[in-house]
């Protein structure tokens, strides 16, 4: 095993980002939670595709359902507190993951679809060494022997630019800084060369310089391994910098999806526009900026309005918006928007 294996797959598959068949198709995915106050639908009818080698950004305010979407894909939500509605499909290699058996899921998790979590501080098991935890993933999904696994794990640590990788191998999570722990998480996620990497706000808990490093790292890995990345973030700066396509979520719904350039140049949903206009023009490439506030509040999942969920905060709404919820409709090539009165389509299109 040497680092050459990292490039082979990219060469083998060699497709340009965003072309060909999607690796992952999510259709009408709805996830509900059983809570004390009743059942809530945290994400409602979410559909999108993910192509090999592309980075799909998912943005939205806190509570819009980004994490729930990604955990639903991986089936990581607790089975007795949550369920998917009838008709939810997560198609991966021709199989519907929503109805896959636990055994099938185990072969997918870690090996084919890997995930990096929002909280690097608590996502590593405090009582096992970094090495042990990296080794575990390799043990489940590769046929390597012990020595090879160790070598591979150290290689991965070096790949994510972990300083002093050999020594870190035997250390415990609490001996590492947040940035280093996130690198371990990335190394762990990538060590079995997954087809899809879901990164749930991989950088929010980190400071700006580390954030930039981590994002660059993910970008490099993507081009080396041709991995599809689902990047969940609050941060439009990060989106502009790294994503090929963006999905905007609001209160459990997808409200707009578009290639990056089009979204920034000509947002078609009022919510997207509000998001974009509230960052200073010069700040578009600036990272570390949180989503600026928009007047009003996100509706509670328990008291969703009958019409458009964004209506209460929308500058363009009318009675129709309050009465009928819009459907997600095509708005140009690879573009969709959920609005009765989408904003002007750009001339160039």
């Amino acid at each position, binding site marked *: 095993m040497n680092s050459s294996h990292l490039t082979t797959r990219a060469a083998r598959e060699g497709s340009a980002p965003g072309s060909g068949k999607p690796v992952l198709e999510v259709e009408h995915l709805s996830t509900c939670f059983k809570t004390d106050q009743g059942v809530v639908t945290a994400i409602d009818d979410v559909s999108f595709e993910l192509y090999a080698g592309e980075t799909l950004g998912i943005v939205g305010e806190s509570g819009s359902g980004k994490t729930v979407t990604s*955990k639903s894909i*991986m089936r*990581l939500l607790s089975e*007795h507190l949550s369920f998917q509605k009838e008709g939810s499909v997560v198609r991966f290699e021709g199989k519907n993951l929503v109805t896959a058996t*636990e055994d099938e899921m*185990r*072969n*997918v*998790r*870690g*090996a084919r679809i*890997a*995930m990096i*979590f929002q*909280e690097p501080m*608590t*996502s*590593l*098991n*405090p*009582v*096992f060494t970094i090495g042990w935890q990296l080794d*575990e*993933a390799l043990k*489940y*999904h590769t046929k390597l022997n012990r020595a090879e696994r160790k070598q591979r794990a150290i290689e991965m640590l070096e790949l994510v630019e972990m300083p002093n990788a050999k020594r870190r191998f035997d250390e*415990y999570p*609490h*001996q590492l800084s947040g940035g280093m722990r996130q690198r371990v*998480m990335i190394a*762990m996620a990538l060590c079995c060369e997954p087809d899809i990497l879901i990164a749930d706000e991989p950088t929010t808990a980190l400071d700006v310089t580390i954030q930039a490093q981590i994002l660059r790292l993910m970008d490099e890995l993507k081009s080396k391994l041709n991995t599809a990345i689902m990047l969940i973030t609050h941060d439009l700066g990060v989106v502009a910098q790294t994503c090929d396509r963006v999905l905007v979520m609001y209160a459990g719904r997808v409200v707009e999806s578009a290639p990056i350039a089009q979204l920034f140049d000509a947002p078609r949903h009022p919510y997207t526009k509000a998001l974009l206009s509230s960052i200073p023009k010069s700040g578009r490439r600036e990272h570390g900026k949180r989503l600026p506030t928009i007047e009003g509040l996100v509706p509670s999942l328990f008291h969703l309005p009958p019409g458009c969920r964004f209506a209460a905060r929308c500058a363009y709404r009318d009675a129709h918006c309050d009465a009928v919820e819009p459907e997600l409709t095509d708005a140009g090539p690879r573009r969709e928007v959920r609005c009765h009165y989408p904003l002007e389509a750009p001339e160039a299109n």
Partner: protein
Amino acid sequence: MWTFILRRLLYNVPVYLGILALLMGALRVNDPISGKLGKNPDPSDYLALEQRYGLDQPFAVQYVKLLGDVVTLDFTDVESWTNDGLFVGEMLAESIVPSLAITVPALCLTSVLAISIAIISAFFRGRPVDKTLMVLAVVGMSVSFLVYVIFGQYWFAYLLGRGSGLSYFAIGGYESGLANWPYYCLLPVLISTFVAMGYDTRFYRAVMVEESGRDYITTAKAKGATKTKIMFVHMLKNAMIPIITRIMTTLPFLVMGSLLLEVYFNIPGMGRVLYKAIQEQDFPVVQTFVAIFAALFILSNILTDVLYALVDPRVRLS
């Protein structure tokens, strides 16, 4: 690590000094000698006894003497009042083995069973198995210890095998030797295990459930770990921290928990010796035994902290 142990030791010194003072004070609320001699003793008898047992000396002197005895573990000069010619040292030596013969197996059995059941329960969390187990645990907890003892003795020692003239368990009594152990001690051990089960299972289950909600469990799942691996490797090692604490803190109480069993089954352990001493107002025995129990308790506390540090790397290295 050594400084850690030393710190814990030093911290517990004032606590132990306090216990001794409290204990000696409480035992002197009722004058021990009038307790022994009756309501209106002959003054000369009284003085003689007071002198013989050193109770005429100032409190501080008696305090230092008791402390010295405990620190040097030398009780050979403390004379029992009611067992002629017996010294506390001998009583302790005789009673410690029967006590351990019940306590240690009971603790091991309880912990293993309770943890296993807790894991099963947490594994099937929210399902009928879990619910049934937890209802049983609460109901079990609500029945008095004494009822278990009485029925345990009645069914297993008295009724079981009576028809065929066999006796599987002793109704009471004790004989030393490993071969005699099942006959005399197994029943008390089983009863004590059964009683502790409800509490422990619930506690361990709560620990497991709490651990199961942690982020690193999701990480392990996302890595493709099986449910059993997650349960027995990821969760159990983390859960060991509260589990160890629990076991260690119940340790000294188990000695006392077996008091009831020892009294009921006539097993000459430390609990029964203490009980009899209290009944017979055997002042020096009571005082020394309680002092020893408290010392054991504090030692087990320190041991807990050390074990804690061994399991949890965060404590170990700080």
